[in-house]
């Protein structure tokens, strides 16, 4: 791999000046590769000629391991895919298994699913914006967004006992009932989050230096995005309105009103880093909108959810694929069953895998500092790239 990237040399040297390319390794351990990602960069001084992401450092054989447990046991493996939006992973997997196995999901469980998934989406986008700020050198917004994320984590911890790998949304419903008074806490958080979003936007998004760093950097156009399979905020920032929650609604998302956020083009061009960032900020606002509607129409009584959960799921022979809209993009699960209570094959279509594949195309002939910004704006999670 390294030899291939090193062999092509396109540096034009004047006859009397000998210039050399620099082959840089942004190694698996690096403050800004957002996980154990290795990027081999061929630079001419400060200009990046080519770059190649090398993945696999976080491969944990998720798909094979998930075959060794029952369908319900495999849920805890799905947590660790996109560990920043674990509820989304759980949801995608649960929906795929439910498609295979059939059955009704209790109304209350549906509402709880939307509640926790949207809360998790806010948390994931907060991390995205915090770490993106870190990449540009603004250290403080990271602390502000993590302070807000702490509130989300506290709510989710109260619901299911875990802060990161929730193991909560299972085939058939959700694992535990909601504790008392949690809805009030969610409402308080939403009020706080709206104010905090204004603060973070003031500090980071509309900061002149930040705009200079991110506008017109790493412009992704719609055709390239579709060709590479990019989905999620990255695709929507190019102007294409594609959100699986509206396109192929799952759960009860069709009951709620929310907009599909696309890049505004307020600064920079559509599809650049700034627009990817603003799409994520707007999606936080949209999630708050959905959550307020969920709180407004939450069923006041329902059967105890945990009792309605199936312990063993034994779907018929067959295969099913469902895709959900994760914070990174379209997260798909293909579940094949052979009739037993253990899955025959689980395949995960990870959005970050396709998002990262577009990095070389975006980074041709940009500066090294810009490459870091583009990588940060793609918002990848190595857990789901490597599985």
């Amino acid at each position, binding site marked *: 791999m390294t030899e291939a990237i090193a062999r092509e040399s396109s540096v034009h040297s004047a006859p009397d000046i000998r210039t050399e390319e*620099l082959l*840089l390794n942004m190694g698996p351990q*690096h*403050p*800004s590769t957002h996980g154990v990602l290795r990027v081999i960069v061929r630079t001419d*001084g*400060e200009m990046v000629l080519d770059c190649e992401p090398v993945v696999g450092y976080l491969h944990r054989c998720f798909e094979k391991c998930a075959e060794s447990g029952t369908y319900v046991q495999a849920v805890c493996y799905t947590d660790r895919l996109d560990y920043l939006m674990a509820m989304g992973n759980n949801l995608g997997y649960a929906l795929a298994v439910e498609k295979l196995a059939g059955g009704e999901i209790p109304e209350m469980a549906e509402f709880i699913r939307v509640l926790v998934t949207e809360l998790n989406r806010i948390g994931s986008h907060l991390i995205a914006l915090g770490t993106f*700020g*870190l*990449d*540009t*050198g*603004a*250290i*403080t917004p990271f*602390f*502000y967004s993590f*302070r807000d994320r702490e509130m989300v984590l506290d709510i989710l911890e109260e619901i299911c006992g875990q802060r990161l790998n929730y193991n909560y949304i299972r085939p058939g419903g959700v694992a535990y009932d909601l504790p008392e008074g949690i809805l009030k806490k969610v409402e308080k958080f939403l009020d706080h989050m709206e104010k905090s979003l204004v603060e973070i936007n003031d*500090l*980071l998004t509309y*900061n002149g*230096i*930040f705009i*200079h*760093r991110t506008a017109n950097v790493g412009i992704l156009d719609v055709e390239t995005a579709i060709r590479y399979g990019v989905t999620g905020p990255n695709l929507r920032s190019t102007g294409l309105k594609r959100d699986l929650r509206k396109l192929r609604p799952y759960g009860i998302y069709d009951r709620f009103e929310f907009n599909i956020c696309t890049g505004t083009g307020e600064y920079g061009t559509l599809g650049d880093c700034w627009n990817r960032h603003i799409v994520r900020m707007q999606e936080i606002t949209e999630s708050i909108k959905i959550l307020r509607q969920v709180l407004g129409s939450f069923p006041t009584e329902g059967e105890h959810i945990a009792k309605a959960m199936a312990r063993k799921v034994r779907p018929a022979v067959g295969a099913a694929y469902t895709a959900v809209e994760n914070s990174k993009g379209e997260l798909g699960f293909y579940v094949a069953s052979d009739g037993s209570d253990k899955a025959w094959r689980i395949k995960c279509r990870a959005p970050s895998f396709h998002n990262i594949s577009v990095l070389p195309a975006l980074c041709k002939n940009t*500066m*090294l*500092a*810009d490459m*870091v910004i583009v990588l940060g704006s793609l918002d990848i999670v190595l857990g789901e790239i490597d599985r």
Partner: protein
Amino acid sequence: MPESTTEILAYRILELLPFLTALPEALHLPLAIALTGLVPITIISLIGLVGVYMERKISAFIQVRLGPMEVGPYGILQTLADGIKLIGKEDIIPRGADRPLFILAPIFAFVGVVLLFVAIPFDRNFIVVDLNVGIFYLAAVASIEVVGVIMAGWASNNKWSLLGAMREAAQVVAYEIPLGICLITVVLLAGSFSMVEIVEGQKGLFLNWFLFRNPVMWVPFIAFMVASLAELKRAPFDLPEAESELVSGFHTEYTGMRFSIFFIAEYGAMFISGALISVLFLGGYYTGIPFLDDIGGAIGLLLRTGTLFGKAFFFIFVQMWLRWTLPRVRLDQMFYICYKVLVPFGFVALLITAFWELVFPGQGFMSLGWAPGSQ
């Protein structure tokens, strides 16, 4: 009998510490020089101590957290503990590193800062050496640190450090131009290169400060602040140490005491730039309140030195505030700011100041006619 300054210095030290006369005659002079050198080094180290604590507390409060609280009341002794820890660390020199350069690099950076310290006026007669070319000396000596950084980047045998050093060299050298332009503007107002003369030129009411001397002096003031941020490699100009890109830039491979020498040099340079801004534009060691400035003796000395320290530390606070608020500019944007914003504006301000001095010599626009300047 003509005696050189160093001989005078040596005799003064021998007067202060009579037990040194027991040593052989030939050693008196070198010893005196060495002992004089200890004073700025100690002060810079103390400033480093306070500066690190300030940085950690200020960054913490901006980031909605507390900062050091455990070691000593409100974490005051934290830096001391860190210093002791750093001294005890293993001295690692990377394999393949250029040993002599690796060892020399932090020394160059530190020496650059100590030499700058020599020309800062703490009071009328309380300056290490009152060079009559003080400004020129400062501009010249500021570049020694660049050599240290480039040596550090090269000697580390690390491509990332090299990148950081290259960026740093380009940045610091580029920003010396607007720095120089602002210095010249002040020299025009003061009529002298000497640091003490510059401060004496601002004696009296605070409206006499060079910042208020003519309507355009805020341009060199702001340009000098921005340029000194870039010289110090502080955010938003911290490309050379861009943490999220280069781990730690040119001093990635430095551990323990070597790293802390770079660190102390950085905080010392911050103090010096703060002191310089106050000396050049904000009246230096004069408070600007005439009856306070006329207090003589030891109390006056303490007051004026304290004033300079206070102003310098205020600018250190502003520099830290900016660091924790703003993102980092890119290399080309950094050059844009230097060459296309600061230099043109600085030159225009210089021209206007020159004309102003021609037409209204030595008077500020706020005091035209009723509060003459010192010229």
